[in-house]
């Protein structure tokens, strides 16, 4: 008995100490439950559908989670995504794909920087600041687009680079309908996770969100850290716009509406604290996948109308938050 307990000790410690153990357990439980009770759930086709549906929100969530760990919120990601998509689509149409990508990242970066500067200069809580820029930036998108949606039927290599079909996978495996955007998303997650846990910058992000006074007392430039995180949140949202336009070749003024709350929900389900100082980008990826999996699962069950899916999300967020809190309390 003692030896079994001793062998389980490292596993127990991992569950308690790792920030992603909570969301990983939730993901596995949801996967098993749906696989057992929902026909056609555990198939390559629905798995690839779950990943594809998660990609855009997932990309936004990378930046939003980073910012939440630094102790701030960004509610203005939706219009930044739309701005990125408009700039990207229009500039590719104009024949300059490299400039298109640059603009789609830099303009949202600037919008993020403005969010950051307002927060550190005025000390207005970021929740309020970005709530107002949510409306302001939507207005800027409206002005920029002239109130019109933009769509194209033109083909361009860059669309396939960012959100093309992975045909070789589909040929090899029946129903494997994966896209390149998922690879970009996962790549972004890995880069950000590395930055967060293995660099000085990441250490300062945790310190800024976890104890701003202590961080400042140790010489951490907390204002700079916050501004950088706001900028990265804008860049991630702009990049989500690039991925979106590459797939649908359509962008509207309302594109990205509601994404801010989905991103925060995903981050929380993924184990990030609303109060800052604790969280994980990989956890956020799991959070987005959990919610996407629920959507697909609920649609396939036919028990609940797909339109009422949001109620299920609400229940999940509360359940996951309680579960993550409980795991944390065990240590």
């Amino acid at each position: 008995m003692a030896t079994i307990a001793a062998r389980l000790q490292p596993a127990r410690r991992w569950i308690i100490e790792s920030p992603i153990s909570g969301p990983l357990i939730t993901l596995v439980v949801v996967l098993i439950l749906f696989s057992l009770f929902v026909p056609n759930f555990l198939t390559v086709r629905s798995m690839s559908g779950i990943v594809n549906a998660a990609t855009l929100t997932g990309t936004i969530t990378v930046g939003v989670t980073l910012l939440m760990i630094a102790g701030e919120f960004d509610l203005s990601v939706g219009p930044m995504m739309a701005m990125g998509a408009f700039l990207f689509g229009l500039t590719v149409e104009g024949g300059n794909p490299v400039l298109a990508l640059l603009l789609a990242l830099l303009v949202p970066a600037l919008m993020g920087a403005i969010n950051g500067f307002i927060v550190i200069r005025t000390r207005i809580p970021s929740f309020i600041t970005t709530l107002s820029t949510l409306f302001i930036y939507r207005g800027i998108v409206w002005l920029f687009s002239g109130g019109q949606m933009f769509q194209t039927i033109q083909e361009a290599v860059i669309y396939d680079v960012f959100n093309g079909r992975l045909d070789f996978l589909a040929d090899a495996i029946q129903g494997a309908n994966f896209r390149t955007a998922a690879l970009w998303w996962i790549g972004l997650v890995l880069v950000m996770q590395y930055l967060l846990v293995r660099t000085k910058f990441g250490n300062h992000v945790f310190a800024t969100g976890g104890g701003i006074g202590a961080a400042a007392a140790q010489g951490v430039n907390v204002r700079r850290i916050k501004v950088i995180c706001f900028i990265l949140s804008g860049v991630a949202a702009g990049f989500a716009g690039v991925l979106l336009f590459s797939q649908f070749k359509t962008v509207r003024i309302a594109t990205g509406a509601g994404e801010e709350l989905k991103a925060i929900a995903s981050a929380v389900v993924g184990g990030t604290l609303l109060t800052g100082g604790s969280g994980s980008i990989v956890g956020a990826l799991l959070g987005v996948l959990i919610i996407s999996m629920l959507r697909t699962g609920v649609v396939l069950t036919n028990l609940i109308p797909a339109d009422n899916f949001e109620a299920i999300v609400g229940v999940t967020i509360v359940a996951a938050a309680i579960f993550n809190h409980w795991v944390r309390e065990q240590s």
Partner: protein
Amino acid sequence: MSDNGKDIPVVRMENIVKRFGTITALNGVDFSVHRGQVAGLLGDNGAGKSTLIKVLTGVHTPTSGQIYFEGELVDIPSPQVARAMGIETCYQDLALVNQMSIARNFYLGRELVRRIGPVRWLNVRGMSQKARDALRDIGIHIRSPNEKVGKLSGGERQSIAIGRARYFGAKLLILDEPTSALSVGETRKVLAYTQAAKERGLGVIFITHNVSHVYQAADTFTIIRHGELVGTYTKDEVTEMDIADLITGERER
């Protein structure tokens, strides 16, 4: 500098005046700390203790008065400058980030990095080992350098903050209410670390309300009341009771 500079104070503040608009927070206060000495700084709430310390650590600029650091007249315009000079402050609740590990707190702002060309990354293992070794050398034993600071007791947190300041070469250690939230046993430990820091030749400023703790720990007692210096006394000049009376103003100097 005569006999290794022991009689030159680490810091000497002279005739410090600090006004905020029409309010005079400090009115001509003198205060000094020598190497290998614990200087108690006492006063009631609002007496001006923390204003004096904020002048010393570069948070506030004095309206008038001089600060000498190791005998040289200095200007301390920011907390960064104070730190670079070797003045470290351990604030009551603001010393450490609870959600981060001991090792990451220990090296916060001074992280060890490895690099290949422009690519730099944290030397996580190096920080863990060195933090553990450094704390052990000072006599602080921890279970694991990867343990979150939030799991530690108040005394353990305080001792890690003191250990960190010592390890990184502080010459003057400012302890702001270091024992106010601690149990008896923990208070004893923190007082022992304070003594150890003093024996290593640091100057220590011990700010508190608690007369009995400071009486055990300090060599001199500087008392301020309503922004004015009441006086500075050595241990053989005053009893605990005298100090309490001087703080509240029940007895004049």
